[in-house]
């Protein structure tokens, strides 16, 4: 048992390490991300020496994708912090891939009565994919627990590019609309595209005219940026920081309200006169009809988690940003995001 627990804790690191690269990749076909493999078949529990009084005895995390994706890393990271800090007695994990995440949502709804001990991890795509109808359900069909972390989006250019700011990019775009393509790691109508469109729209351009080129993985989009195939890349901020630290790219705009401590050199869109913000959140959901007392317990455990050194270690290792939205706030946030994304998608012709 002891050995299993050690392996399970470490196996999480695998996935956490991948988070950066697969951050925006929930859209990618499963067969490309097959990292899943063996780990997907394994579900371990993690007993630990309790330090604090446990708030919950056990949590079962349902992960709608294979091992190694962003969802997987979030669930396992949260589980690690909760159990190591003693806020939860044990945590177990279950990977249920299929339907790009839709299968797990359906499973949680159909088996709601027996799933009171389960928390499902999800992120911005649940909003986008419910809008496009890829998922038959949406977030209202589940019990909202809390949004826990997030990642801003960023527009980057190659290190040798003549473009140094959003205004340079806009000038280049105005000069040659068909020749200035923006790439990203999501499908058209997916997150990276929506961010690019949102930014261009806020800058006063017609978002439908923007040439968006989709790539099936962050690495390929990056290669395309450096080879000059595309002029700019829309990507997750934490991924952009890694590339900027490696000396590959310049971050010309981040969709945060103010400069982010992790990389102060990156200017926000707002300070460049482009009034737009965007957060790719990740958070947890319970089965529909989850008793209120239990919801409150989960929310309490997650809220207390932020103050623990164990969480700080996990968060720092993954470059996540703490963005805590609990209960009603979470609901309001999701409705706001659904409206903003829905309006944009309608305008772009995806709805």
């Amino acid at each position, binding site marked *: 048992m002891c050995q299993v627990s050690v392996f399970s804790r*470490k196996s999480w690191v695998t996935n956490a390490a991948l988070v950066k690269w697969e951050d925006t990749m929930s859209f990618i076909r499963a*067969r490309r*991300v097959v990292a899943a493999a063996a780990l997907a078949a394994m579900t371990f529990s993690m007993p630990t020496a309790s330090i604090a009084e446990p708030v919950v005895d056990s949590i079962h995390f349902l992960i709608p994708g294979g091992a*190694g994706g962003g969802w997987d890393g979030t669930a396992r990271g949260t589980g690690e912090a909760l159990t190591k800090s003693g806020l939860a007695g044990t945590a177990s994990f279950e990977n249920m891939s299929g339907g*790009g995440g839709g299968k797990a949502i359906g499973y949680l709804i159909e088996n709601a009565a027996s799933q009171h001990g389960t928390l499902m991890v999800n992120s911005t795509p649940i909003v986008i994919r419910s809008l496009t109808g890829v998922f038959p359900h949406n977030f209202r069909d589940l019990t909202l627990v809390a949004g826990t972390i997030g990642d801003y989006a960023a527009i980057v250019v190659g290190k040798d590019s003549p473009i140094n700011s959003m205004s340079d990019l806009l000038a280049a775009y105005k000069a040659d609309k068909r020749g200035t393509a923006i790439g990203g790691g999501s499908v058209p109508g997916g997150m990276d595209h929506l961010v690019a469109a949102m930014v261009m729209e806020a800058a006063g351009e017609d978002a439908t005219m923007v040439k968006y080129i989709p790539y099936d993985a962050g690495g390929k989009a990056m290669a395309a940026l450096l*080879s000059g195939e595309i002029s700019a890349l829309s990507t997750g901020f934490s991924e952009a920081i*890694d590339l900027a630290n*490696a000396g590959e790219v310049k971050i010309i705009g981040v969709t945060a309200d103010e400069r982010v401590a992790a990389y102060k050199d990156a200017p926000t869109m707002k300070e460049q006169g482009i009034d737009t913000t965007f957060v790719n959140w990740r958070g947890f959901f319970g089965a529909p009809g989850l008793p209120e007392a239990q919801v409150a317990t989960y929310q309490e455990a997650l809220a207390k988690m932020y103050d623990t050194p164990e969480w700080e270690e996990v968060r720092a290792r993954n470059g996540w940003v703490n963005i805590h939205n609990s209960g009603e706030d979470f609901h309001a946030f999701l409705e706001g995001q659904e409206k903003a994304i829905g309006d944009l998608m309608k305008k772009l012709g995806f709805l």
Partner: protein
Amino acid sequence: MLDGIWVGLSTAFSFSNLLMVIGGCLIGTFIGMLPGLGPMSIIAIMIPVAISIGDPSAALILLAGVYYGAIFGGSTSSILINAPGVASTVATSFDGYPLARQGKAGKALTVAAIASFAGGSIGAILLMIFAPALASVALLFHSAEYFALMVVGLSAIAAFAGSGQVGKALLMTLVGLMMATVGEGALFNQPRFTMGILDLQSGFGFITLAMAMFALPEALFLVLDPSRSNSGGSSGDIKDLRITKAEAKKIAPVIGRQSIQGFLIGVLPGAGATIASFLGYAVERNIAPKEEQAEFGKGSVKGLAAPESANNAACTGSFVPLLTLGIPGSGTTAILLGALIALNVSPGPRLMIDQPEIFWSVIISMYVGNVILLILNLPLIPYIAKVLAVPRNYLIPFILFFTLMGAYIGQNNATELLMLVGFGVCATLLRFANYPLAPLLIGFILGSMLEDNFSRSMQLYDGIGFIMERPMTMGLLALAVILVVLPTIRARRVRKQELEAAESD
């Protein structure tokens, strides 16, 4: 650079790092032999171990060892039971399995081992000398060129389009290309052709299809036709490792060419080992002399050596964009990159300057690793090959077990098993009607990359103008045409010469 190599040598040859190489290679080869567990999953399993080591050089040496060890071992299941566990060893089974069926399993495994060794070692040497310079080559290809490269790869189907088979081979390729369109693509925000079935939303699984097309029909044929299992020759032959001098002469230039070609294709972030193996197979098949060409697909040593050297060299090549640009070209290198970042190493142009010991020790350990793999594998071949001498009533359940496990383990989804059996039955029926199944799989594997790159280029150039505007695209497409047409032209010339000779008599 010499300083760097020196630092690398001293790091790579430290006792603990040598243990890492040996350990990584051993784990990689043995797990890699199981169908369904490709390099990606093995590395994913090993990463926690590597990270707990703490030293980035040792961790990367271990993971790299696992990576090429898995590619090395991956050919085994392709050759022995026609069950390619990863896309890059599909081409290996084209000639490897027929050789094993002819009772030359030992020889086939030896050729594969030597070709892998040569590919890996030549790749490591090229990596050592040219890595910094090749960083720019990695960025030479745009989507248009990747599209053209996939077209060249498709010309590998010519090997299955023998006389009277052209129509059938083309038809099967088309079916494969069509199957690749099922599910969510990179370019459309709606899933296609899923008929509302959630399990199809991410498309057909590669392993499911590979097992259904190759391994399952073979197992079913063994059941249907008991005499087939005995055609494997006496166990003495199976174990025979020896390669004749004539064969060695035949494969030497193939291995040389394909090691270099494979390496270069591996360097491209959008290509990788699978494309390298198909291209290697296509090129070698189509430039071979007429009489040898007929052997391709029926147990040619050349046809086995080409993809094996190419895919190993390509694996080594894929470290160029990873280490010099920080760009992962494949899923496997993306996982490696994740591990590096977790160890606080950021690969990129500065890696070679800031942390030369990591850069060079990894490259040098690759060379060491290949030598170790060869030493480990050669003595084991007789025992591994003996699997085929197992009586059929034990062998068939064994094959079926590994086939089913391979399909299930990747997705953890029982529907895959139903699909596997369904496609397996269809594939068996097609085999009865003498339809070649390899083109279907080639079409399926190349299909999505072909489509993605084509439509990206269409979008970038607002039409198909990119073919004219980009000389390299044009060149590659011309090469594809030449590769397909060349054998026909040569055959016609030979016939003409014979005719003239006959007239002059």
